């Protein structure tokens, strides 16, 4: 096994993969990419690995994967021998995929809002922020309701890659002006995520030394 990750430190999609590598205890060579301002991922040689010109990209031997959620699913299926991060059980499996889709689609507004705020990129700030708040509210309602059934995580009965895919947008939301005031359930859940073995921080997610 030799994993290589093309990544930009401030990119929350790359952070999802770093969280999974940590949770699974996997060693990985990281290749830093100048995404902002260089947009290095849109030019050769990286554009030949991923024609979409996006990050992150994972290379594992002959396998080349893009899309953070797909990479999480691959890593879990391939390297999680206990099979808990991407559960086999049909309901937990379906729930995990449902929240992975949510991380990709609904939380994309949060990604764009954060990029606009951090890198001064154009973007309709208020509209993106509104969509991010709506998504966080759906997450807050879900995790709060599950708490009454003694369930602490988004899907299944234990932590899954869904939790890892959802965590960055919420944990980094102060970068684009959404405080955690209105999300007590998500605050408590993110503490649980922080307590997972192998958890890593990134710039914007404080390490409480």
């Amino acid at each position, binding site marked *: 096994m030799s994993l290589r990750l093309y990544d930009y430190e401030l990119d929350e999609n790359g952070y999802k993969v770093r969280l999974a590598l940590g949770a699974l205890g996997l060693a990985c060579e990281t290749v830093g990419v100048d995404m902002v301002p260089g947009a290095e991922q849109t030019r050769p040689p990286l554009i030949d690995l991923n024609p979409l010109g996006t990050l992150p990209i994972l290379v594992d031997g002959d396998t080349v994967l893009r899309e953070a959620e797909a990479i999480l699913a691959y890593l879990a299926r391939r390297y999680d021998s206990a099979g808990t991060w991407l559960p086999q059980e049909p309901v937990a499996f379906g729930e995990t995929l449902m929240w992975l889709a949510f991380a990709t689609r609904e939380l994309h507004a949060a990604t764009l809002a954060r990029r606009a705020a951090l890198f001064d990129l154009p973007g309709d700030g208020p509209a993106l922020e509104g969509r991010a708040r709506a998504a966080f509210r759906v997450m807050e309602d879900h995790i709060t309701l599950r708490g009454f059934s003694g369930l602490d995580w988004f899907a299944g009965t234990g932590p899954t890659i869904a939790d890892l895919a959802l965590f960055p947008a919420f944990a980094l939301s102060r970068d684009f002006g959404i405080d955690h*005031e209105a999300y*007590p359930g998500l*605050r408590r859940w993110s503490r649980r995520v922080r307590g997972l073995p192998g958890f890593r921080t990134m710039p914007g997610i404080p390490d*409480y030394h």
Partner: protein
Amino acid sequence: MDEPEGWYAVALGADIEPSTSAGTRLFGHELVVWRDAGGAVHVWEDRCPHRGMRLSFGFVRGDHIACLYHGWRYDTAGQCRFIPAHPDLEVSPMIRTRTYPCRERAGLIWVRWGAPAEEAEPAPVAASPLRSLYLEAPAARLAAALGEAGPDGLVRFDLAGSPVLVAVQPLAGEASAAHIVVPDTPEAPEADLGRLAAACVTLRRSIEGAAP
């Protein structure tokens, strides 16, 4: 906005776990609510005296809260005790944050705002936490939908057929929170908290959708 004096709930007690903090607002003023490792709660102005950063971004260690930015540490009285850049310094008593009187009652954390007429502390209420609902609606609209609070700050409300207690927190102009608990009554059957938590979502929709 008007800032009537009195006691206001700012969180469910259960949502502020030991050694954690959270930022919130009351009438637009930023507050940090935190619980020390010993379990006592504190409500302060959410501003580090050093450079004004929000203390709620920081972290709690033992009976101190530390600012995330340069690590200044404050004790439970709001007095700065330690400055990492000057570890041997005896910190001046002038370096302190603004603290507010607070207490826990009915499963909620309350802060005293202004100097309301001193009344005897209301009798304790045994209640289980339901949830805090954050609404994009002014506090007055919540009062119109839920009813007026009693002298102890709690609204008695019927949620989907079950009695609940609600405390309204005016966050800022168009934002408010409703902290909802379920009274523990020995004779009543155990409340179905999951069902009531789901009913909260319907309640939020109807209040936000109500004409101003």
